[in-house]
């Protein structure tokens, strides 16, 4: 499904090149549940952004469902992000001025779903994450765990085959974190490919495959199918 081969990512800052990723190669099969672990600054988020088509590699090749990403236009990447990929961020990244329901509807706006249908499609997802009663609440009126569940509903609204979660439980207490994790694992059981970045050993332990990253390189990759 996903194939990174010999990916490097170099940031140039003040004339100095910082190599954030060097020679990262990685294959992901449909339906996998993967944890990415590693110390802070090791490049986990950079890999996730790469996988999520938010960032382009400096060199190397990234094939998404067989199509080479580096040759795609910005609009094609936007469309892949919209339809094929769901993002869940550590900081939730909800639009503060919008209600929970409106937030969930945002991806549908960009796939051209008319307003009337958007509501119909967004509500079942809020139901699924247990926030049906809170759909008119603004993010500031929700707890962290609730906000993250809205973010998951939003990530799933276009039924993408791939869900990327960058430290989804990092800002939550263990009970809320557990709820989020249960939802993610449940989704994987329904066939969604799920990749989770985490610091938490107990979270990683529940994933079939664990990838360890250090200094921009994959140093360990256990449980490949």
């Amino acid at each position: 499904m996903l194939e990174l081969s010999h990916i490097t990512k170099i940031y140039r800052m003040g004339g100095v090149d910082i190599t954030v990723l060097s020679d990262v190669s990685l294959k992901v099969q449909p339906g996998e549940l993967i944890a990415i672990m590693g110390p802070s600054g090791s490049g986990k988020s950079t890999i996730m952004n790469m996988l999520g088509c938010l960032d382009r590699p400096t060199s190397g090749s990234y094939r998404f469902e067989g199509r080479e990403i580096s040759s795609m236009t910005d609009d094609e990447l936007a469309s892949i992000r919209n339809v094929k990929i769901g993002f869940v961020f550590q900081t939730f990244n909800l639009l503060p001025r919008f209600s929970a329901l409106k937030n969930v509807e945002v991806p549908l706006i960009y796939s051209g779903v008319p307003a009337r249908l958007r509501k119909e499609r967004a509500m079942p997802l809020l139901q699924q994450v247990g926030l049906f009663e809170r759909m008119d609440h603004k993010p500031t009126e929700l707890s962290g765990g609730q906000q993250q569940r809205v973010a998951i509903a939003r990530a799933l609204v276009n039924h993408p085959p791939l869900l990327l979660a960058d430290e989804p439980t990092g800002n939550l207490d263990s009970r809320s974190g557990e709820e989020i994790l249960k939802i993610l694992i449940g989704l994987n059981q329904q066939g969604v490919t799920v990749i989770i970045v985490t610091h938490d050993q107990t979270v990683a332990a529940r994933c079939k495959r664990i990838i360890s990253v250090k200094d921009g390189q994959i140093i360990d990759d256990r449980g490949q199918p």
Partner: protein
Amino acid sequence: MNFLETFRVAFEAIVSNKVRSGLTMLGVIIGVMAVILLVSIGAGAQAYITKELTGMGTNLLVITPGKTSMRGGFHPPSAGTVRKLTYDDSQALRRRAWLLTDAVPLVFGTGKLKYRNMGRDIMIIGTTPEFQRVRNLFVDTGSYISQGDVDSKSKVVVLGTKVKEELFGSENALGKVVVLSDARYRVVGVMQKKGTSLGMDIDDIVYIPVTSGQELFDTDSLFEIIASTPRAEDVDRAIAQIKDVLIKRHAHKEDFTIQTQGAMLETMNTILGVLTAVLGGIAGISLLVGGIGIMNIMLVSVRERTREIGIRKALGARNSDILAQFMIEAITLSGAGGVIGIILGVGLALVIPVFVDVLPTSVSLWSILMAFFFSAAVGIFFGVYPARKASLQDPIQALRWE
């Protein structure tokens, strides 16, 4: 993403920051209002002048002594001209220029008017009976100056209504004797009430025979001759006749100037047109400043919402979606400002003449349309840069923005 949705997103952004949006719009509102108001005042003045000049009587020709090379414009009466325009000239025109219905000799100036212990300076016109017809100003009670009065240089005076009210109140003025620049004049008539025209109070004038006027102003010349011809098509031929008659009488020299009403109108309209354009231009500058205000706020808004841009991009917004969102926000700000400005501008233009009667206004559709499209264009022009900046944000950098 469809237009309606983009519009809704932009509208929500505007509403969620009411004070700022309001202040931003204020720049455009004032600009548009100023454009409409100043243009309608200019157009109003133009319409007013046209109405007053044509209201004076039709197809007037004004002959003044002295030759100016320029066509149109205003000339001071007779100062230092070689050959003067005389009462006999006007009589000759009446007799020989048959296309003219009238050729009315005129002297005018100010003098002191006294009755009992009251007295003040007043505008005096010395003329003949035909003045009534040419200028559409008629006597109300008593009689106007007669040809006999002119021939015999009688000391008779016809009063404007305001003068009459002031001196006599409700008393009958006919037959009373007033002193006009140290000479005693008998009141023979009172004019109809007319009001103000072209900034002059028509009711605050007194009329005396032209011959007496020449004596009063100590001159044997006329200040002008007002001639009229019944048909507009005859104006050119009438001019030729006047020239023919006068040149023969003036030792074969064209030492006088003939202005037609049309030419005067044209001159006035040109002056007012330029004035209107200048005023409109100045107002346009304030609209431009309003546009810069929009750009400024849009740049702040783009910066503030960098994270929102990142989120939207991560969720599948294309560059063009973001561009459209911010463009529509800018255009909505300027467009709404434009509409409010139009309403205020038109409202003021309609209300001002009610309170200030020297400022007639005329609201024209084209000035409204122009102001609206100009303000929309300002929104587009000053919205492009911030919106492009927003749309080209790198999603990762935007998401990292705090």
